[in-house]
């Protein structure tokens, strides 16, 4: 099955579907949703099939494809996956249909309220027609052609801006294609193109599909998100070019091919510069402290589905970049900067957790918890042990599940009460017991309770870090107390106690659609907590190879035991 161009298929299907869905008129909103769901589910099935076709213990990239694109500059369409990118593509393929289904009714109100006159809606509903949307690999021309967004004008005319369901679906599909591309690219320039391309659909998702009544904050958040990402992107672009220049010096011809760049022996001084370019871009994207302040705004202003994708997937591009590009391409610089990264990581763990405890807005709260989680991921990546690294990559997947679910639950609450303010809730466990239970499970995963997926990754990060640097691991471990506080304090304020607002007294519990959305997430959270081996077996060889290539090996214990690994006695 290795001859099947899995990655191109996974990339092209949602991209094509995006074009088709964007062309749907608004009155076919339901059909647009159905098509989108069908396509994203198909992508999920294909991604799972690809995973079965993948050979975890084979070295190097698999499903590789290579076509010259701009051969003058050694730019190619080159894709391939290792275990690290494969699991992130799997996560992408899982979360997008979940988001489609969870957002099913979110923008329905608008056209239906108009009744038969629905077709007569003003067509400038905030977004340009889908034809102008960037497609994967479309390059800069398309981006330049995108006209300015006109949400503002609409907002002034109509208090509640009308949002087009087909456009929303198209944006999700573009995002999915872009994410597959960013994880699958093995050409650094191609990676950069996708890295920038995924900003655009997310920008529109935040700017045009966020909470209807918060126009100004929404625009602010969207712009802030873009400015930050742009700054990082420019730095990375400079570093990408620098990398090309260096490759041209070392090889006969400059190249962007990852495998070739990896063989270069770059001088430490140059490495530091290039590392900085990549690292800042990734640290903004992930984000790490202190590059994080766009995240709470973007998380709070994005529609819930958008927030799930933003924090669950887009941010993973940053942590993915750290282990895919920063460490293998610039090993000396990674060594040199490791103390800085580790310090930022540990600060992030505490800073994010403390700020999460202090939040009154549920979406901001969840965003800040992510800052703490990204701290754990960065810690694991730069501890340079196979346990910590494997844990960190698994953490990326697990965080997508746990935080994704937490965002979804918050979304369910907002859909019922129309506000993310924690103070508007209280005592809901009696009214909506299933919703409360789901929130608790999501929270328990977020605080890394054993039996949930996150425990495995968090403990691996900590134990792997411990063998590298005891003090760091000990400090980071105390962060688990804060995690318990931000999760249970949120649950306490929303779900326990007496019902303080009359409006909460008759809220409906989860619908069947909502249950269908959360059920697979919960199954994975518990399933991967009890039996994470299938994922670990995919991730571990690639992580181990990455560290081995840069000359890192796990420290041996001073008093090893003689029995079988794990002491199965």
């Amino acid at each position: 099955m290795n001859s099947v161009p899995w990655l191109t298929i996974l990339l092209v299907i949602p991209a094509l579907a995006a074009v088709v869905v964007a062309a749907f008129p608004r009155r076919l909103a339901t059909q647009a949703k159905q098509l989108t769901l069908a396509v994203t589910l198909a992508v999920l099935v294909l991604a799972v099939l690809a995973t079965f076709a993948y050979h975890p213990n084979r070295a190097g990239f698999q499903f590789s494809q290579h076509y010259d694109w701009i051969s003058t500059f050694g730019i190619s369409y080159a894709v391939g996956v290792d275990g690290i990118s494969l699991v992130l593509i799997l996560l992408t393929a899982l979360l997008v249909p979940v988001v489609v289904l969870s957002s099913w009714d979110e923008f329905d109100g608008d056209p239906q309220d108009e009744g038969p006159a629905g077709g007569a809606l003003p067509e400038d509903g905030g977004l340009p027609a889908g034809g102008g949307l960037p497609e994967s690999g479309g390059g800069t021309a398309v981006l330049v052609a995108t006209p300015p967004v006109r949400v503002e004008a609409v907002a002034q005319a109509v208090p509640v801006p009308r949002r087009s369901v087909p456009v929303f679906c198209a944006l999700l599909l573009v995002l999915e294609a872009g994410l597959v591309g960013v994880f699958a690219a093995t050409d650094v320039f191609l990676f950069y193109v996708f890295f920038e391309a995924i900003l655009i659909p997310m920008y529109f998702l935040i700017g045009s599909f966020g909470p209807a009544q918060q126009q100004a904050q929404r625009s602010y958040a969207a712009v802030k998100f873009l400015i930050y990402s742009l700054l990082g992107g420019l730095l990375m672009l400079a570093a990408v070019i620098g990398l090309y220049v260096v490759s041209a010096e070392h090889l006969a011809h400059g190249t962007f091919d990852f495998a070739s760049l990896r063989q270069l022996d770059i001088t430490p001084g140059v490495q530091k510069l290039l590392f900085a370019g990549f690292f800042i871009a990734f640290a903004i994207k992930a984000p790490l402290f202190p590059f994080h302040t766009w995240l709470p705004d973007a998380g709070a202003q994005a529609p819930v589905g958008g927030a799930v994708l933003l924090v669950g997937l887009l941010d993973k591009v940053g942590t993915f970049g750290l282990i895919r590009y920063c460490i293998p391409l610039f090993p000396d610089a990674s060594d040199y900067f490791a103390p800085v990264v580790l310090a930022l990581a540990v600060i992030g763990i505490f800073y994010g957790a403390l700020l999460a405890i202090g939040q009154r807005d549920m979406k901001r709260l969840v965003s800040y918890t992510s800052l703490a989680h990204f701290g754990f991921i960065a810690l694991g990546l730069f501890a340079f042990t196979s346990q910590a690294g494997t844990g960190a990559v698994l953490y990326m997947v697990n965080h997508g599940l746990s935080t994704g679910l937490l965002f979804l639950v918050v979304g369910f609450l907002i859909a019922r009460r129309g506000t993310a303010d924690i103070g508007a809730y209280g005592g809901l466990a009696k009214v909506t017991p299933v919703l409360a239970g789901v929130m608790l499970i999501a929270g328990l995963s977020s605080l890394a309770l054993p039996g949930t997926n996150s425990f495995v990754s968090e403990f691996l990060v900590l134990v792997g870090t411990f063998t590298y640097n005891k003090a760091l691991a000990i400090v980071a471990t105390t962060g688990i107390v804060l995690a318990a506080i931000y999760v249970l304090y949120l649950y306490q304020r929303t779900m326990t106690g007496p019902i303080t607002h009359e409006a909460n007294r008759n809220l409906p519990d989860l619908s069947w659609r909502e249950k269908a959305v959360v059920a697979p997430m919960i199954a994975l959270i518990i399933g991967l907590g009890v039996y994470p081996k299938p994922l670990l077996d995919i991730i571990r060889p690639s992580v181990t190879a990455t560290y081995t290539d840069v000359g890192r090996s796990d420290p041996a214990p001073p008093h090893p035991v003689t029995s079988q690994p794990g002491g199965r006695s």
Partner: protein
Amino acid sequence: MTHTPVHYAAASGAFSVSWLLILLPLAGAAVLLLGGRRTDRFGHLIGTLAAAASFVVGVVLFAAMLGRSGDDRAVSQHLFSWIPVNGFQVDVGLLVDQLSIVFVLLITGVGTLIHIYSIGYMAHDPARRKFFAYMNLFLASMLLLVLGNNFLSLYAGWELVGLSSYLLIKFWEDRPAAATAANKAFYMNRVGDVGLAIAIMLMFATVGSTSYADVFGAAAANVIGYGTISAIALLLLLGACGKSGQFPLQAWLPDAMEGPTPISALIHAATMVTAGVYLIVRSAPIFNETQAARTVVVVIGAITILLGCVIGCAYDDIKKVLAYSTVSQIGYMFLAVGLGPAGYAIGIMHLLAHGFFKAGLFLGAGSVIHAMDDDQDLRHYGGLWRYMPVTWATFGLGFLAIIGFPGLSGFFTKDRIIETAFDKGGTSGYLLGAVALLGAGITAFYMSRLFLMTFHGRPRWSSEGEDARHPHESPPTMTGPMIVLAVGSTFAGGLFVLGHSMQDWLEPVAGEGVEGVHTFSPIVLTALTLVVVAGGFAAAWLRYQARPVEATARPDTEVTLVTVAARHDLFANTVNETIAMRPGQFLTRFLVWLDLVGVDGLVRGSAAGIGGLSGRMRRLQTGFVRSYALSMLGGAVLMVGALLLVWGG
């Protein structure tokens, strides 16, 4: 440096299904939680059945173990590979041995009784099904804790026990106090969990494994440095203190009384708080190597004995008094196991005896509370023996057992702790012995106070008027378990010491309890203890039986400073608030502010500067895509330029 690992036999016969012990209650919980309201009608029966089935499996395994020779009794079973990453290989596996099997019998046996009791106690609660689901989860978690064959499986059970207790303490979660108490329990437990987690990391970093066989093998082979092994032991102790409510992490335990009373019985007798003692005895090979850590264990035990006793005298809430009596009784167990091989088995004996009488006492208290319309104030009781004779009799036996009345459980087990403490020898031996002896006296005092104020004296309630009470005996589902536990409270202790049976049984795990030189002859010491206990009882009699008891407590201004301090839990909460909560709240608020105006403000300022845009969002918005496009273009030009340079050169 290498060494032979500890030997465990492979699982065969009945032992190959020992995972059923955990799976049965776990499945019960899953069915009840997933089944939802459909299972409301019979949920309590499923829950009870699951617990009882697990107990039956436990009995079968116990019988099978008896049938094996001494060397073959510890059976380790590999279930599946859990977290395999190169050198870090953690399995899910079970260890059924002499130590875990007695815990299994205690957990499932007493647990099942509490399930049966709850059928009656929770009969009118609309969420009874959920209650049984959580109790099943509690049993499953605790069984995983005691049955895991490596430290990470134990840790999983450890934290899941924390979760279960959280769920049950906040069971009546529309009460803010219950929700707060549950959070407090979870937070403080997590502080302890940090210790356990770091201990496990340190084990892995030192010996490259977390399995009991490997870690204990390395510890016994004496290859781990004294500093390292002491650090491991002290970190384990931190975990033990959190779970067992020992000083300085005891403050959550009394608050946990917000949960329904059967839960108090479950937490205090069959599960949870005994976990710390289990951890220390299980880790005996580690503690054996470090005198320093053992000393800390006994000191914590001694402090906690007194702390629990003193506060126990001051409360008028029947459940709080019992809660502090648990704190102090667990202190006895810590004291015992801190004494090393001489005390491990004795600590476990007291734990088991305590399991019976404390469960009985809590269930009896629940019966009283039930009869008194949920009033928990001792000062509103009085003379209840006439109205609830079964509760009186069973509670009375539990009471006699805990104060160490001759012939009952506590008499045998607590006496042995006092004796072992004195036998430690030297000044420290005298000191510890004196603390244990004093504790026995105070225990007799406050438990007699509780017993007399509840069941004897003149009734301080009325069967008429607005606040009329009609105390009545509880239904058989409740009295049945109480009777069984009373029987256990009466005879268990004697059974354990009979011909050293328990010590011999536990010897392979806990080591041989060397009979040291007696500081006092056992008979003298027993007599001395009895005198002290009788003194405590007499004091309570004079104060609470011979004289009428006031229906309201005297205000803080009229009692001694010690009483005031005791009424405020010796200011444990104040200390926690001062050193952790308030600074934490301040820090949180400060950071929220800082993030908004500091970090973010800086960025906003520079962003506005870079873009050459005013702070007005509208202009940012419309100007933005253009500038993005421009910069992309600029980037492209830059890049082409650079490529041309390289290409041309």
